[in-house]
């Protein structure tokens, strides 16, 4: 789960990581009151779950109330990569001497926590990683309830000589690490971490992603959830035991298993079609799940054909067939449906479906993909 900059910074503050004076605002009036309280030049920042908001015009400087009003009005309601801005953060402008990037994430290869530091802060780190990867230093940190101070110092000395800055930087890393493990984050990022002209380090921006699997032990974090429409749909599907991601194509697909679902989408593409979604009904063959899955597929106006690909293992093909028949009774479906059933109880499943005129059954993935695509033309 992604959380907003302002939420991440609230968490940072609890861990005594320095952040600028700031306030979340949902309209211009609030923004002006915040501006008066901060009482100096501010930055107005769109709060949306996507990167690149700076480039999109979602961050503006304001030195007076008129500028602030203009900036806030412009940003609120703005569409940034499909995300509508509903909140802005009014944040004290800081006198920047130098900007750093500091990020913590999971190191899948070494099974540790990965610390990334770059003296090229303030720009998109993906860009730095692409253009000049040597400018990002990586450190594998062992897992623990806290980071040993000497490790944080070792990193800090790679970037600073002045002990005053070394201490602030090491301290920030130690605290970020604590945030990461305490809050079950999968990403904790400060970009930029700035040094002000007074040699103070401040987290000017903050990004945090929380591990969905760990949410049960963080009821407070779950309250920070602020999903967009697509994410809401995904979460709702998850509560039904489905893994559903909407895409732009026109062939809806329903598959059991994530790997097979991806392979199915790839197959559609391989034969010239475009998948409308990723949909994994998981390992159980509960007819309710099959019905709910059909509901998602038929609800998407882009979907012009449906391809169902089931390889029965634990999932029983006859159960899937029963679920489909139930769905056909409850949902009016006029779209062409191609089904491939294989594995456990496939024959029984096919027999059950043979009573329905709505579906065409085939015996392999590739056939299913080809047939589904052919129905579109």
């Amino acid at each position: 789960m992604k959380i907003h900059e302002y939420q991440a910074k609230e968490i940072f503050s609890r861990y005594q990581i320095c952040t600028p004076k700031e306030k979340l605002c949902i309209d211009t009036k609030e923004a002006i009151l915040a501006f008066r309280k901060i009482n100096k030049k501010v930055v107005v920042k769109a709060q949306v779950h996507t990167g690149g908001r700076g480039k999109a015009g979602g961050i503006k400087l304001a030195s007076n109330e008129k500028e602030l009003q203009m900036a806030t009005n412009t940003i609120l309601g703005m569409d940034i990569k499909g995300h509508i801005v509903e909140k802005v953060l009014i944040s004290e402008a800081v006198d920047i001497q130098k900007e750093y990037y500091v990020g913590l994430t999971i190191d899948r290869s070494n099974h540790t926590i990965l610390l990334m530091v770059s003296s090229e802060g303030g720009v998109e780190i993906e860009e730095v990683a692409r253009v000049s990867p040597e400018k990002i230093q990586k450190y594998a940190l062992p897992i623990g309830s806290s980071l040993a101070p000497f490790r944080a110092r070792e990193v800090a000395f790679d970037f600073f000589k002045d002990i005053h800055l070394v201490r602030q930087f090491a301290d920030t890393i130690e605290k970020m690490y604590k945030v990461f493990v305490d809050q079950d984050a999968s990403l904790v990022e400060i970009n930029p971490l700035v040094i002000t002209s007074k040699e103070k380090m401040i987290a000017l921006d903050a990004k945090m992603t929380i591990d969905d699997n760990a949410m049960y032990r963080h009821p407070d974090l779950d309250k920070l959830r602020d999903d967009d429409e697509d994410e809401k749909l995904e979460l709702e599907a998850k509560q039904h035991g489905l893994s559903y991601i909407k895409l732009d194509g026109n062939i809806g697909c329903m598959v059991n298993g994530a790997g097979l679902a991806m392979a199915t989408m790839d197959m559609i593409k391989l034969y010239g079609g475009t998948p409308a979604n990723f949909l994994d009904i998981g390992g159980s063959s509960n007819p309710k799940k099959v019905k709910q899955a059909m509901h998602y597929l038929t609800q998407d106006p882009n979907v012009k054909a449906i391809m169902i690909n089931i390889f029965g293992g634990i999932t029983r093909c006859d159960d899937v067939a029963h679920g489909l028949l139930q769905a056909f009774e409850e949902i009016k479906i006029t779209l062409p449906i191609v089904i491939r059933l294989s594995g456990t109880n496939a024959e029984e499943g096919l027999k059950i479906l043979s009573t329905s005129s709505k579906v065409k059954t085939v015996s392999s993935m590739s056939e299913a993909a080809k047939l589904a695509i052919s129905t579109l033309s």
Partner: protein
Amino acid sequence: MSILIDKKSRVIVQGITGRDGAFHTKKMIEYGTHIVGGISPGKGGTTVEGVPVYNTMQEAVLNTWADTSIIFVPARFAPDAIIEASEAGVRLVIAISEGIPVVDMLRVKAVLNKNGTSMIGPNCPGLISPGKAMIGILPTNIFMEGNVGLISRSGTLTYEMVDQLTRNGIGQSTCIGIGGDPIAGLYYLELLEQFEADPETKAVVLIGEIGGDAEERAAAFIKNHMTKPVVAFFAGQTAPAGKQMGHAGAIISSGSGTAQDKIACYEGLGIPVAREPEEIPELIKKLLS
């Protein structure tokens, strides 16, 4: 021979009295797997499918000399169960449980490393050495004894592949579903090493997914150290960036770990990549002939 498990494996089922645990215990026993005990705190002294149930792994290992454990307990309790198994001295833990927080898995891995315990999973379907033993939730009927090893992050995609192999008369030595979580146990590299060393295995099918660079690191090993042919397949060419595709590990971030990258890497090293699952048997036959 085969790798990791065979007829001699002595297996404990952790969470044996749960719905899934009990169901799959039956299936594993039916396949001939040597299930020597189960764990269910408070149910010690009872039996499930004729298998004695113990309260703790310590007790179970002392009474059964088990060397392997399979974990069916819910995600919240699974990290503790894995550590319990490792501290009790089993050699291999297969974690079926899905949805374990990543930070927990980091801690678990540290303990496993300390004790020298191997793990398959979590969030995986387990593994099978056809004709010898199955430890997991795999549909045994599709497998056939033979000489091809298979490694995959995915469950049903594995079944699809195995089905293709078996239908074409190509049997398997050992098939391993390594799971799709960001932090997992034995992975491509370690398992390729074991397949290379296994006299029974003549070729390996590697099924990859988007996300991470485990497949790429495996490729270097295949190129430099493997004498046996490897055929690869990668799922997720159409997956969009930044979206988690079912498996927590199957996510493309920062433009790395795409299926295109992986395919290019393998083909660049001369390792054949199938465009669709149905091509696999033919590629294998060609390489083995």
